[in-house]
């Protein structure tokens, strides 16, 4: 991807308010995560002056979001939790992106048996229910941050692969590829120099959306009790809150982590959708997750892509 392309995308992005809002939302969280040690009033694991009266206390001047069932400061946990979510999100998504792009590139470019095999694999993974699979793997394998990242990353590449493959297929037919072949450029060179740069912008848009999916996946796993026990993550906060605070209606413990997850996810989705719209405006479908998976699955079946809207069921008007 050239600097020129980057600048163009940047300019197009700035013109879209949805994207800007998303970016701001994300940056807030990133800054909080980075500045955690300075921002958080307490260490998340500190149990401060714990006496029975100090458990599950509502917000007050010393603890802006109150305390949890073990006397710890909720706000600090919330701030440090950002680190876990963002780490899992970005690393897992990066992993999926790399795997997906490679497979999609190879499958699309080489075609033939490699292609069929890869796509069967994609079909296969799309059919297996993901949360049960992740649950099973993590509970067998053991808890831990890197294990979670690996599992989410290794299962999330399918959509990217499909997308990259279809892009590659359409690019493959173009003249300059044939010219390069005639000149004698090696396959690798062609793929790297000509095809990959065209595919990268789309992959990045996808990756941003994938980050939000990874964050939600991690929070679901943590909520169900499989998070890294040495760390504080939003999902785990919700796990404790649900187990212990719900009957006491401790909203200060129950709601903030969830809202934080929604905040960062929505921010990422706004950015990702905007990027997607910019780099591939012919994609009339809104590629938010469920839909992405499903569109990837039925891409082979539905015969046509949506055509530009030249007919609308609107009354013909007379200009004034």
């Amino acid at each position, binding site marked *: 991807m050239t600097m020129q392309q980057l600048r163009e995308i940047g300019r197009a992005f700035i013109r879209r308010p949805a994207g800007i809002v998303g970016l701001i939302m994300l940056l807030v969280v990133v800054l909080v995560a980075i500045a955690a040690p300075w921002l958080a009033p307490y260490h998340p694991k500190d149990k401060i002056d714990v006496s029975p009266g100090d458990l599950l206390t509502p917000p007050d001047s010393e603890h802006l979001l109150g305390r949890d069932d073990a006397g710890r400061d909720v706000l600090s946990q919330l701030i440090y939790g950002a680190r876990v979510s963002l780490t899992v999100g970005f690393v897992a998504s990066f992993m999926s992106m790399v795997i997906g792009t490679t497979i999609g590139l190879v499958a699309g470019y080489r075609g033939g048996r490699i292609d069929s095999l890869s796509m069967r694999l994609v079909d296969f993974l799309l059919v297996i229910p993901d949360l049960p699979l992740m649950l099973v793997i993590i509970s067998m394998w053991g808890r831990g941050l890197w294990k979670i990242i690996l599992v989410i990353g290794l299962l999330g590449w399918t959509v990217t692969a499909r997308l990259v493959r279809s892009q590659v297929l359409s690019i493959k037919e173009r003249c300059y590829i044939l010219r390069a072949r005639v000149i004698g450029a090696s396959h690798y060179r062609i793929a790297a120099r000509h095809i990959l740069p065209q595919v990268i912008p789309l992959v990045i848009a996808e990756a941003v959306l994938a980050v939000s999916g990874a964050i939600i996946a991690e929070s679901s796993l943590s909520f169900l009790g499989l998070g890294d026990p040495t760390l504080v993550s939003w999902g785990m906060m919700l796990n404790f809150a649900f187990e212990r605070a719900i009957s006491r209606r401790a909203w200060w413990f129950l709601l903030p982590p969830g809202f934080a997850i929604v905040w960062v996810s929505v921010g990422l989705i706004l950015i990702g959708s905007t990027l997607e719209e910019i780099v591939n405006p012919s994609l009339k479908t809104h590629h938010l997750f469920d839909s992405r998976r499903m569109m990837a699955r039925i891409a082979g079946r539905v015969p046509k892509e949506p055509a530009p809207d030249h007919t609308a069921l609107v009354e013909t008007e*007379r*200009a004034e």
Partner: protein
Amino acid sequence: MSLLEVRNLSIDYLREDGTALHAVEEVCFTLEEGRSLGLVGESGCGKTTVILGILRLLPAQGRIVSGEVLFKGTDLFSLSEAEMRKHRWKHLSIIFQGSMNALNPVRRVGDQIADAIKLHENANDGRQVEVRVHQLLDLVGISPQRSRHYPHQYSGGMRQRAMIAMALACSPDILIADEPTTALDVMIQAQILDLLQKLQKELALSIILVTHDLGVVAEMCNDVLVMYGGRTAEYAGVDTIFNEAQHPYTRRLLQAFPDIANPSSKLASIPGYPPPLDALPRGCRFEPRCHRKRAICAEQIPILEAVQPGHYVACPFREDN
């Protein structure tokens, strides 16, 4: 009273940023009963827009800026949408080009034709409707059993014929055919044209034929309206156009067509391209490519004048014979 009279029809397309593209400007013509009109011009000259405009079927960005369309005296533009719907198909029907997807692929052909009948005639008797559908298919040379088939089971030519059958379902006064043969191969083209001619005679149909093929026009039409850049260039009877055309564009168009009497003569193409809608010339639309242009042509839009009764030309420097 004429069957159809179009007066000063102007249509714009609105772009995303709100600016208007002038697709059609001040087009006028008249269609009498039993006669047919050929609407001729290069791609993008506005012919399809004209007929979509007449039927009020423009896409969302289309705007009818001015004009009147009088069908048997009634201005179609003054009707409400509900009233207009009653006129559609019953009085004016249309067949589109390339009919690949003009028929719904997941519904049976017979059902789609029956739709039209049920919509406009108060036909509640399923049996009667079915009989009529079979009659129509027979009329266009399709075996009635095929009414149970789906469009993908028809060949391209058959689909076009099915569309014709559907268009005739309510015995319309006017049939509009938008490039009916363009997407078909030559043999089928001839079939379709023969069919249209036959129907025209048998049913005393008035046809508006939109095409860029002068040969078709010569065979089928009584009058010809030549369009360029959204405006009328020349409008006259078919014989006049072919033998006494005066507009430079019309003459070049005729020259560009192979003449069977002179098979070895060179085909003359017109250099250049039609003007893009967002960069229309200030004056005559054809001026950039015209071989008879003068300075004033780039400044002033030529007026459509009657050089003889029934022969209109929009060029002050027309070629008299």
